[in-house]
């Protein structure tokens, strides 16, 4: 199974095995990482799954207009690395991806 690493606001690192097809928001929730809230369950309505992609081994999906608009409303200001983790679907090409979870959701 491909792996994803989450760097939490306290600096700790969590590496999870994530099944192909699962979003990186869902993976965090199912593994009890409460720093990612995922309030809207992945329907692009809450921006509480905001992450900074520190390292992407493969190409990420395009940012849709809707995601782009939500990224403009995040609690921690967006950067070039900002993505909503509910929109990143795990695949072998992303094995080893590293996400940093912002302080403020």
């Amino acid at each position, binding site marked *: 199974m491909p792996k994803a690493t989450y760097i939490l606001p306290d600096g700790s690192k969590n590496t999870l095995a994530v099944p192909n097809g699962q979003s990186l928001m869902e993976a*965090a*929730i*199912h*593994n*009890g*990482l*409460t720093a*990612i*809230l*995922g*309030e*809207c*369950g*992945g*329907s692009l*309505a*809450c*921006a*509480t799954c905001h992450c900074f992609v520190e390292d992407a081994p493969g190409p990420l999906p395009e940012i849709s207009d809707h995601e782009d608009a*939500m990224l403009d*409303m*995040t*609690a921690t200001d967006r950067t070039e690395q900002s993505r909503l983790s509910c929109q990143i679907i795990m695949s072998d090409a992303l094995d080893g991806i590293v996400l940093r979870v912002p302080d*403020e*959701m």
Partner: protein
Amino acid sequence: MTNPTNPARGAVSSSARLFDTENLINPYPLYQELRDAGPVIWLEAYGLYMLPRYAETKQALEDWESFSSAGGVTMNDEMNEKLRGGLLCSDPPRHDALRKVIERPVTPKALSQLRNRVAEEAKELVIRLVEQGSFDAATELAQHLPVTIVSDLVGLPEKGRERMLAWAPANFDCFGPANSDRTKAAMPIVGEMVNYAFTQCVPGKLKPDGWAQMIWDAAERGEVSVEDAPFMMNDYMGPSLDTTIFATTWLVWLFAKHPDQWQKLRDNPALIPSAINEAVRLHSPIQNFSRYVAKDVEIGGVTLPAGSRVIIAYGSANRDERKWDNPTEFDILRRDSNDHLGFGHGEHNCVGKNLARLEIRALLTELLPRVERFELLEAQIFHNNILHGLQSCRVTVH
């Protein structure tokens, strides 16, 4: 409205009395009967169509051009006339302009600034109630955040604000069909509320930095019209109180009935959003609204004629066996629980859902480490044409 004796071809005629008290108390057997009867039902008692299944409900909510909100979303003409102008009863492009203004204080960024304050308030409350040992979840637990924090943020004048808890459900009773006794009885109370909006909710009497005042500020900048502003006052208070209060209460009730699910949430508090979804799916605080059929439209194999009105049954769609496995089961691990329509869907999906989720999350977060299980002592259903909730839910916590 179309002639009540002449339903569209293919619609299944039913004598079901959805708004009789016994069916308001427990609508689910009737919903099931109607879902099994067909995708489009003609309710003879009210002269209204109804879409009891999930697929057609979703389709209608995605097609505002055929299923218009500007034609009103209640089940009677008088109320539709009264509410004309607010966000709830508008179509694009007007709806887009109003929505931009209403949603400003509840965007993710704005809400994140509230999260700490709500969390602290929730902590104090839960510590006190857990010490108390037994409490009424419907009042003591669930009312606190909406009534104190949210009301304060909206910033309506103190004078009259305490009436909101009586006004808001009466407002929803008035959404019922014209020939329902509940609808008729509640009309005068809504008059009071409308009067309050027009005479009290005005600049000078509103809290200067509150959400209600922000509507007037937007009107001054020309983002909405000054005539619209009084109608929009209701958009924060009307739909934000009982909905959130009932969702919270249902959660406690469900966890009392299903201790295994509470244990699962204790094991993984990150599942809070799914738990909230599952409660709103299974016991949707808003059961029914309606749409006006603006042009002939085909749905579920039936052509609904322009000018007719159709009930959108969130509460029935959310239990449709065609969509959900074991629909009556409370399962916080349900994979597709996010597909529920309890917060609406499409153009008019709930503006306040992130706020509601933030409030409920705050309470659950504090309850999880302090409560091993809830023991249900007594619960009583609230009677309302539209809202479905518990007016009391006494529990002891262990």
